[in-house]
């Protein structure tokens, strides 16, 4: 075997070591922050790669009615605080979803108002970050319609969700305007059960289950990234983007 035909290993190994540092150069201010953390840089690389390489707004697989499966209810299954209990006792007649922030007409929607808007029903797979999956039918109003009804501004970049169980999280505008991103009030043909986030939960079908917040209370449209401080997942070591 002629030595000349082989990969020059010594040069190769020393070259790799010196060029690796150049790969993770800086990104713009509107991206999720990395805090100089190597794992968050990996998350950011995945997010940027998905946004660059994947076609926008392609639909997640929708299943047949017969495919509907059992669904474990995890996380908060009842926000046991006084405010939520009062709303629940009144069958959410006094419940309102406020939509504010970077919108021309901040407003509050009652459950009936949301139900009267054009709805979307989809049978999709809930993919939990733990590794399990479940298929259910969700009925709700596209988040896009709600944002448009509130007059979303052209500078808006992110949508933040606030829930009665204390959860807060956000998604970018691409996922927020996705046709399958809905605010669901129905599950498998019935009202959304308490354990699955009554009266209203988000369904973000292009990301893992933990981005689909239950027990929605408030939506805030922002022009900039919000890490939600100590309440935010990203501050607690979880990836903000969960399209994986």
């Amino acid at each position, binding site marked *: 075997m002629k030595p000349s035909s082989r990969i020059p290993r010594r040069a190769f190994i020393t070259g790799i070591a010196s060029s690796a540092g150049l790969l993770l150069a800086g990104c713009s201010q509107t991206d999720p922050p990395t805090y100089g953390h190597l794992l968050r840089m990996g998350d950011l690389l995945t997010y940027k790669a998905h946004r660059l390489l994947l076609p926008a707004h392609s639909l*997640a697989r929708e299943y047949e009615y017969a495919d509907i499966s059992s669904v474990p209810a995890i996380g908060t299954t009842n926000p046991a605080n006084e405010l939520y209990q009062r709303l629940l006792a009144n069958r959410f007649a006094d419940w309102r979803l406020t939509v504010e922030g970077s919108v021309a007409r901040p407003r509050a929607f009652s459950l009936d108002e949301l139900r009267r808007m054009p709805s979307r029903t989809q049978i999709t797979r809930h993919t939990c970050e733990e590794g399990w999956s479940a298929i*259910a039918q969700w009925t709700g109003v596209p988040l896009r319609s709600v944002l448009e009804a509130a007059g979303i501004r052209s500078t808006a970049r992110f949508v933040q969700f606030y829930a009665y169980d204390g959860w807060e999280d956000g998604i970018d505008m691409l996922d927020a305007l996705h046709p399958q991103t809905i605010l669901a009030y129905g599950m498998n043909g019935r009202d959304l059960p308490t354990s699955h986030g009554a009266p209203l939960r988000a369904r973000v079908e292009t990301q893992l289950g933990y981005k689909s917040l239950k027990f929605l209370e408030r939506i805030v449209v922002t022009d900039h990234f919000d890490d939600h401080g100590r309440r935010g997942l990203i501050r607690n070591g979880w990836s903000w983007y969960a399209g994986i």
Partner: protein
Amino acid sequence: MTLALSGFLILMVHPRLYLGHAGNDLMPALLTLPISNNYRPDELHGRIVFTELPNAPVSAERNYPLFNKNGWARSLHFLAAWILVGSGAVYFSLGVFSGHVRRDLLPRGGELAPRSLLQDLRNHFPPRAGPTGAGLPYGLLQKLAYASVMFVVLPLMVTTGLTMSPAVTAAYPFLLDVFGGYQTARTIHFCGFTALVLFLIVHVVMVIATGFGRQLRAMTWGSQ
């Protein structure tokens, strides 16, 4: 190694494997692995039935604390996966263009005859140290092991991994059809993990058995 360890941590959070698209604690598992205490179906309570039909799907709540290190384990898994894909791409292009793949890795036509396969298999029993050093041609079984890892198992790990991504399968739904669903892809991903760990163990044992220091020099800096 990083991928194997972080993958194992991720598996510990839900140590049950299924076939098809849906699989969870309320459904029968294909395989339950005794690697964590996270599977306790008896402790799911508050069952509600979704429809009145027989065998109707149900919902239930979990009330036990979950072992879950997925926050960092998953981010680490994907960071390592990016490095695997990057170095894999470099290896493939260098291997193909330098002729390493064709010359050293792929078995030649005649070598795959049952007779020569049997002969090489017989040569391994009883085990004995053969000649070592850089530049020696790979043995037949060695070729098959390396080639199947590089061209079958690792590409399968990447593609089944992508099939578990909601954003990727929204863009390329055929992945779900190729592997028969999200949970089947996850199960194949686990089988690939097992195969790679076995390969690694055999590989390291063989390296040690045939002279650790000499083999390590041959692998990194080439022949002395």
